[in-house]
C-alpha cells in the first residue's frame, strides 16, 4: 500500500506576503501530511525554500510566524486529520 495514502489530506492557506516570495505560488494548497512538520516539508517540495521561511533550524516554527490548525496555534509536532484547514500567517512584527 502506498504510505502516502494513509496520510490525512489537508488544506493549507498561506499569507499573501509568503506566497509573494515564490513566483507562481498559490495561496492555497492541498497536501498530505501527518503533522505540521510534514506539511511544511510538502510545501517545500513544491516551492523549494518555502520551508525555511516558516521553520527555523532549532527546528521550530519561526518566532514571528504562526501556524493554526482548525483555529488552534500549532507546533511542528501537531498532528493533522483528514480535511483539516491549516493557516500559515505572519505574526505582528516590525516597525
Amino acid at each position, binding site marked *: 500500500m502506498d504510505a502516502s495514502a494513509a496520510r490525512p489530506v489537508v488544506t493549507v492557506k498561506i499569507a499573501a506576503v509568503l506566497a509573494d516570495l515564490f513566483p507562481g505560488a498559490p495561496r492555497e494548497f492541498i497536501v498530505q501530511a501527518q503533522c505540521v512538520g510534514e506539511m511544511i516539508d510538502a510545501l517545500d517540495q513544491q516551492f523549494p525554500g518555502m520551508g525555511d521561511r516558516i521553520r*527555523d*533550524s*532549532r527546528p521550530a516554527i519561526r518566532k514571528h510566524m504562526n501556524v493554526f490548525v482548525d483555529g488552534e496555534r500549532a507546533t511542528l509536532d501537531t498532528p493533522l486529520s483528514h480535511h483539516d484547514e491549516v493557516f500559515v500567517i505572519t505574526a505582528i*512584527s516590525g516597525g
Partner: protein
Amino acid sequence: MTQSINLLIGTRKGAFILKSNEDRRIWEMSGPHCETWPTNHVVGDPKTGTIYAAGGNEWFGPAVWKSTDGGKSWTHSSKGLAYAEGQDPVKAVWSLCVAPDAIYAGVEPAGLFKSTDGGESWVHLDGLRNHRSREHWMPGGAGLILHSLLVDPDDPQSIHVGISSAGVFHSADGGQTWEPRNKGTRADYMPEDQRYPEVGQCVHNLVRAAGGNGRLYQQNHCGMYRSDDAGKTWQSIEDGLPSSFGFPAAAHPRDPDTVFMVPLNGDTKGRYMPDAKAAVWRTRDGGKTWADLRDGLPQQDVYFNVLRQALSTDSLSPAGVYFGAASGAIYGSANEGDGWTLIAQNLPPVVSVETMVA
C-alpha cells in the same frame, strides 16, 4: 568605453539601486527591491553584473537575494544558511563578499558561510563558531554580527572578518581556523587594566587598502586604526579627528595612503555629526593628518549618523565617494570628497552603500 556605476544600497526596508554614468551627475533610482526585507548589505560582481543582497526578515528569517538583470527580478535562497539543530538560528545575513572562488556571507549570530554555486546554496565554515574565545564574545548594539568581511583577491584562503564586539579575526586556511588580530586596539568599556584584551574589541568597520601590501584600516568603537601587517598590530590614527567614535571607513581604490571616515560626536553624546555639521574626513598620508570635507554637505542641524557599511568608494578616476545616512539621504562626491551633492533622500534608514562599476 562608457561605464555605468551602480550604487547598491541596503536599507531597513529593502534594497535600492542608483545608476549613473562616469559623470556621476544624474542618478536613476530603482527599488525598493527584495520585497522590502531589511537588507543589510548589497554587493555586485563587476565581472557578471550579478547583484547579491543580504538580509533577514523578522517573519521569514535570513536569506541572500540575487538578481542577474540589474535588479529587475530577484530570487532568494537560504539553503544551508543555518546552524545545527538546537543552536540559536541564523537571524540575518549582515555582510557579503564576492571572492574569486566563491561568495561569502557573514551572519548574526556571528558566523561565516560560503557558496560555490552563485548563492544558490551555502555551507557553514564552522571555525568561528568553534573558536576557543567564542564564549567571551559579547553582542554589540546591533547584535553579535559579522559585518566586515574581506577575502584577499590574490589569496582567497586569506580572510579577515570584523565582529561586534568580538574584534578582528584572520584565517589563513579559507575559514577553517582563525586567530584574533586586535593587538593595539582599545576596549575603553573594560576595566582600566583590561583595555587591550586579545578579543572583545568593538570593531565597527574593517577595510583593505589598495596595493595588496597588508595594509588595513579600521573604525572601532574606540578609535581609528591602521595596520601595516595584515592586522597583526594596529596603530591609532585618531589624532586630528573630532572624536574617536564613528562607524564606517572606506579605502581609496588605488592609493593605500588615502582613506575616508565619518567621525560622529561621540559614543555617549548622541552619535550624530560633530557640532551638528556634516563632514567626511580624509587622510592622504595613512592617517598622519586629516582634512574635513564639507563642501556641499549640510552644515546646520544635522543629527543623522552613518552606519558601519554605509560609506564607500568607486573604482573610477577620480574616485567617487558615497555615504548613506540613517535619515535616508545619500550623498556622493565625484572628486574624492572635495565636493558633495545630495543624490537621493527620504529613503528608509540606510544601513549600507556599495558600488559596482560595470
